């Protein structure tokens, strides 16, 4: 069936950062140098073409953008400065918006103002809520225990409630992604057991991001940058998330240091700090292709993460060194960033933590399905040669 083109697609993608797609003249250099391109998923050139042609239906069922790890090798090689790597990045932003069933993501990606104001308002509302609570109970001079300015059991409950709502949205979005990429996008019907067969891809890619390490530029950098940095950041983040979501009461005990919980917190902080430092610095010095162009959402993402990390660490220090007022104020600031950060989660770049492992998993399933179907066909008609 013919595909209907959307001639306005490219204009829209512009707002997601793909500014130079029209420069591409399809020399294929980029696909040839990309280590992640293979027989079934070829990019970035093909995605450039689909974008130029406005093949919206092809693009929103595509897994390719998630198979790109943005090492920037393709952009470095591109003779037209069409920035194929940035196109893949923009497609990811666009897909996050596509998968999102609420439509909020698109608003954030398309307008800085909307995003920044939402963050600010959410932060202020958080502060208002905390101060409102303070009218009835809690003392600014107390950091831990039930009389605390922000008592951990309430914060904890709030965290879990918020987390659950967002987790559900993210899950629904992930389901939407599955239906787009696997139902509408996959040419072959896929038997359920193939999904089981590849299930290990999910944790594998979530915990290792191993394809990041395979990029040429990553290997060339000697220290496996930025993969190793990202790995530290990601592990730090996950550790922190578990600490906050499950062990918050232990974390906020004090003022003495509670090593069994805090040691994880310290390690996680190191990962987070180096991570945000590295990414912010890279985006400032713009030496490598993948940091040449920063979309507003990239900045919001790293800056919020940096603020969360720094306020969290400061709160901890003030708390342990007997400065309860300072500790409580930084804690409030911390929450003022955490809430908008969490609220943005399914609608922002960070959703890649779900979509990327999923995409890797789906890609493996699709490949297996393809091979399986070929085998089946051959057993039906033995003369048929595979193409």
């Amino acid at each position, binding site marked *: 069936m013919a595909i209907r083109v959307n001639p306005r697609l490219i204009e829209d993608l512009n707002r997601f950062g793909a500014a130079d797609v029209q420069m591409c*003249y*399809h*020399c*294929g250099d980029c696909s040839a140098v990309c280590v992640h391109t293979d*027989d079934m998923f*070829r990019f970035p*050139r093909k995605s450039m073409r689909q974008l130029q042609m406005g093949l919206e239906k092809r693009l929103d069922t595509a897994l390719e953008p998630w198979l790109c790890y943005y090492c920037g090798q393709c952009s470095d090689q591109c003779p*037209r400065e069409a920035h194929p790597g940035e196109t893949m990045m923009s497609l990811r932003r666009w897909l996050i918006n596509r998968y999102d069933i609420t439509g909020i993501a698109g608003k954030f990606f398309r307008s800085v103002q909307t995003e920044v104001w939402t963050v600010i308002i959410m932060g202020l509302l958080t502060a208002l809520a905390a101060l409102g609570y303070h009218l009835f109970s809690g003392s600014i001079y107390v950091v831990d225990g039930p009389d605390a300015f922000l008592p951990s059991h309430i914060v904890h409950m709030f965290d879990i409630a918020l987390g659950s709502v967002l987790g559900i949205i993210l899950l629904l979005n992930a389901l939407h992604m599955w239906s787009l990429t696997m139902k509408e996008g996959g040419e072959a019907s896929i038997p359920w057991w193939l999904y089981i067969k590849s299930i290990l891809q999910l944790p594998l890619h979530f915990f290792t991001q191993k394809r990041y390490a395979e990029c040429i530029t990553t290997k060339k950098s000697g220290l496996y940058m930025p993969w190793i940095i990202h790995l530290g950041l990601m592990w730090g983040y996950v550790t922190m998330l578990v600490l906050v979501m499950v062990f918050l009461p232990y974390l906020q005990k004090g003022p003495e240091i509670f090593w069994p919980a805090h040691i994880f917190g310290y390690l996680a902080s190191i990962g987070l700090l180096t991570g945000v430092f590295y990414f912010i610095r890279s985006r400032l010095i713009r030496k490598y292709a993948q940091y040449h162009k920063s979309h507003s959402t990239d900045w919001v993402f790293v800056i919020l993460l940096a603020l969360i990390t720094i306020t969290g660490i400061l709160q901890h220090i003030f708390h342990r060194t007997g400065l309860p007022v300072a500790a409580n104020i930084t804690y409030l600031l911390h929450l003022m960033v955490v809430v908008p950060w969490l609220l943005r989660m399914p609608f922002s770049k960070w959703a890649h933590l779900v979509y990327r492992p999923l995409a890797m998993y789906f890609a493996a399933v699709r490949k297996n399905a393809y091979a399986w179907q070929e085998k089946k066909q051959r057993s039906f008609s033995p003369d048929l040669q595979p193409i």
Partner: protein
Amino acid sequence: MRIGVFFCQVDQEKLINLDQIIKYADNLPGVVYTRIFGVKPKLNPEELSILLKEYAFERIVIAGDSPGYFKPVFAKAMALAGGNPHEVQLASFREHGARGEEAVERAKGILACASYAVPYSLAAIPKGAPVHPSTLIIGGGVAGIQAALELADAGKPVYLVERTGTIGGHMAMFDKTFPTLDCAACILTPKMVAVGQHDMIRLLTNAAVEGVSGIPGSYKVKVRTRARCVDLTSCISCGLCSEVCPVKVISEFDAGISQRKAIYIPFPQAVPNVYMVDADHCTYIQSDGKKCGVCLKKCPKECINLNESDLVEEIEVGNIILATGYDILDASIIPQYGYGIYPNVITAIEFERLTNASGTTGGKIVTKTMQVNKRTGEKEWIFDSTGPSPKNVAIIHCVGSRDKKYNGYCSRVCCMYSLKFSHLVKEKIPEVNCYEFYIDMRAFGKGYEEFAERIREEGTFVVRGRSATVSMDNGNMVVKGEDIVQDKVVEFPVDLVVLAVGLVPAKGTVELCTLLGLTRDPDGWFSELDYNGNPTDTERGGIYVAGMCQGPKDIPDTVAQGSAVAAGVLRSITSGRGIGHHSNLMLSEIEARAKSIHTF
């Protein structure tokens, strides 16, 4: 006389500050009305005629860049209004060179002339300024040769200054030319010989222009002829000197794939057909006569003088033609193809010499063989006619062209010469696999598309997608790229890679520009006066451009321009009025002259 002035532009380029010009126009005698119509206005003759009638114009001036575009509308409107349609005059700013610093002054002059209905060139060029009948041509490639012959055959004296020891330029290096696959030498050599023998042509090879002064129609040019050290008239090019010369130097004419001696002739059909000494490498000259000098004793005509010094002379000419051609981009600055690292990655020009019957392998296409240099003991890779023939040849298009990192522009001839290479390879090695990696096939000329089809039919694999890299895998070269038609990333094992490297202006172009007060276009080639209307004139009247130095082009276009510039020069000489575009008269003088011509 009631005159109306209308400003119309054909394109967006706002080169001129119209405010000043309009003020000036308002004060011109007879001008009763001025109006700006802007860029490509939609003019309706009926409506216009109402305006014309209202003001009862007796003459109309349309001013701007290429205002001729609007003349039909105004002429019709004038007729409808009952006026004289022949009184629609043009003030063509760009066409008469109103750009750059003096644009506004120039435009005023052009406008004044138009208001008097006097051709600008008639009023603005000093009458009777004598034009020297001689012409200087810089660059002896096929463009320079063609122009020289046209002028000389018309009986005008020509100085042809060529930097190297022979004329012929790049075309002399080729075996065959696309798309006809004619023998290049069969076309060029007779022309070269004709230049060498022509009474009206003075050939200055191994020479360079060092200074230019004067005005259009009368230039004084300083030319330095470097010591050739061999007498031009008595050398019989027997080559005995070269046989005994102990010094070996990389051959420029062979694009570096073979060696020559320090006393040498670039190639056997060189014009002048005389040996020459490379002073930078001659042991005798470098040691101030203390060492070597063996050639002196060998020469049967005693025509070698290793103590000769450069000759600097001043010549007088009326016009100057630039035909300095091009150079090849240095392929070693493009890392991904391994030029300079892998011995069997070569440039197009090297391939031309390899496949040339008079080249180092006698036209046999081979891959390089390793040899140990006896003197230095180092390994070298050289083309040897006994070497193995390649089985798989890759030709990569657009190397350094259409590439923002190197040359953004298309070099225009690479697609076609690459196809020519495929033909030559397949002709000489029938069982070879030949791959052309291209992005867009630019087969734009007469017979070119057919030529491209023919090459495909001959069995060359034409792969859509410029290959991305050349790498080494277990001693085999591998070309990797995306075949965008097959939609596959592919790897081809090959043993010879030819890079269709882009073209750049010849070395020395910048210096010539400063010397002659010319400008270059953003890509570095000499700027022509007007791309469409005056492609071989420059804004300095009396200086012309021909051939590749104005922008990439093939031989037919180059030759056509060679003839075209001769027409320009002859026009200037026969009209006896200096040359078209550049006026050194003051605005007031132009006004006065226009007025007097008008009343007369």
